[in-house]
């Protein structure tokens, strides 16, 4: 340990800076509130963004007719699929 190193003095300065004013201070409460708000906004954003994507894709799929009810009788075997029209 080198006594000349001003660890205690520097650490106090750094601690005051790091904690935005220290435990239970106005700055810490504001940071907490902002963080909670960002978290909630992100959660709502996940829902809204996904809803848009799914709605768009669903409408596209329905419009394409790709999922129309097949007018077929399906019979299958172990290795092949036989599709026969009515």
């Amino acid at each position, binding site marked *: *340990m*080198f*006594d000349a190193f001003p660890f205690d003095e520097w*650490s106090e300065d*750094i*601690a005051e800076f*790091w*904690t935005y004013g*220290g*435990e*239970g*201070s106005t700055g*810490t*409460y504001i940071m*907490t509130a902002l*963080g*909670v708000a*960002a*978290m909630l906004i*992100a*959660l709502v954003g*996940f*829902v809204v*963004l*996904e*809803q848009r*994507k*799914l*709605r768009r*894709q*669903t409408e596209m*799929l*329905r419009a394409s007719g*790709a*999922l129309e*009810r*097949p007018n*077929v009788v*399906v019979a*299958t*075997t*172990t*290795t092949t*699929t036989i*599709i026969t029209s009515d």
Partner: protein
Amino acid sequence: MISSLFSSWLAQAAPTAEEIQAQVTLDSQILTEQFYFWTVVIMWLIHAGFMAYEAGAARRKNVMSTAMKNILTIAVVTPSFYYFGWYIYGCFEEGWPKDGHGSPTVEGLEVLAGFCQNTAPWAAQMGPNLQDHVSAVFFLAFLLFSWTTASIMSGALIERVRLSAFLILAVVLGSGVWIMDAAWGWSGGGWLVTRYGFHDSIASLVVHGVAGAFTLGVLLNLGPRIGKYTVEGAARTFRGHNTHLTLLGLMLIFTGFYGFYAACLVIQSTVFPGWLNIYFSPTTLGAIAFVITFGFAGGFTGGWFASKGDPFWTLSGGLAGVISVSAGADVYHPSLAYLLSISGGMLAVYAGTYIEKKLRVDDAVGAVAVHGVCGFYGVFLVGVFAGGYPTGINNVESSFGGQLMGMLAFLPLAFIPGYVVSWILKKLNILRVPAEVELEGLDLAEFGQDFFPEFERVPEIVIEPDGREVDAAPVLLDAYWQTNGRAETPVGTGERS
């Protein structure tokens, strides 16, 4: 230069006893800090493993949407656990705080006085703090446990749950439900511990069992994947796109479990005489390493024989084996752990088959069986094989009754929120992707691309209940129409409106 430094070092006066004590204390705290930090690093493998495990179990069309759940779990559980989950752990050990927000006043727990206040997000311990080397890394270890609970649920829901719905459920489970049960039964001052001697040292029930019960509640509202069951209710099998990836994921999870096990212990040599379990009862790191390793050995063995050599269930059996012996990991002899984990591995296979084929609950990776059933089984086993072992700071004897009390408390604590929250999401129509998107695959809808662009797209295969491999497209389309486009109804003949 070197001789000058050496001379100045020699010139210093001999340290006093107080200075040596202060230095030893600081060194001890820094060792503790390093220990938990590296357990966190190792536990990341659990999440890398869950991602690979579930992505491999998903069909090709759902790979990225499956993996993204595991990644974004970290995005939502981390802040929610920081802002209110950790506070629940610190302040709800006696249930709802009776005298404001204070730490429990248990004789012998003076070392934790003020823990509750230290867990609020504006506390000095919850940020950079040069006077505290332990609180932050201890929080991080618990945060990784929280991710794990969400990842346990994740695999069961794949291929039809909405990403955003899963993330909401992950917050409820990872930052609310599991940490509440941890406060009650996985802490030094938890009411189940100090009054009933509840013993679940490495979290068979408080992590795995609770996550499994929560998941079951969600699955009942989510329903099976389209085409999972025939009109008669027999179960088809969907083949994952990459079983090798699934098995690699499981091996990563197993590696991460060593970090998980280690992080469940408490070490701080200037405060406690040695290694302690989460209830502050003495143990050793070697004792739990014995049990986890024999747990894997027995679990693989049980899973192999019960499934008649199925690769997926052999490795899942290893996981189930460990979970079955985790609750008593600080107590069990390795041979006992080996025998019990064999039974746990077998139980997971039988329970998984029953849940899939008899209950007709589509749990895509067997999470309810492996984590849920074996989590409860592990706590039950402690009541049978470790009854009388003194648990906790006030040395209440473990007992079958105490273990039963824990099971009775945690089953509704986990199942009801899972069922209720998923029911609400279902009523809001944001729990499950539209049936059309499910048939096409979630990746195209969520990300607009196929994640294997240079590979030929081969027809999807489904295994019929009689074992025949058939082309999946006509089967799934038929199931889609027979269920009126509502995949939660496995049997039905109504027309789609």
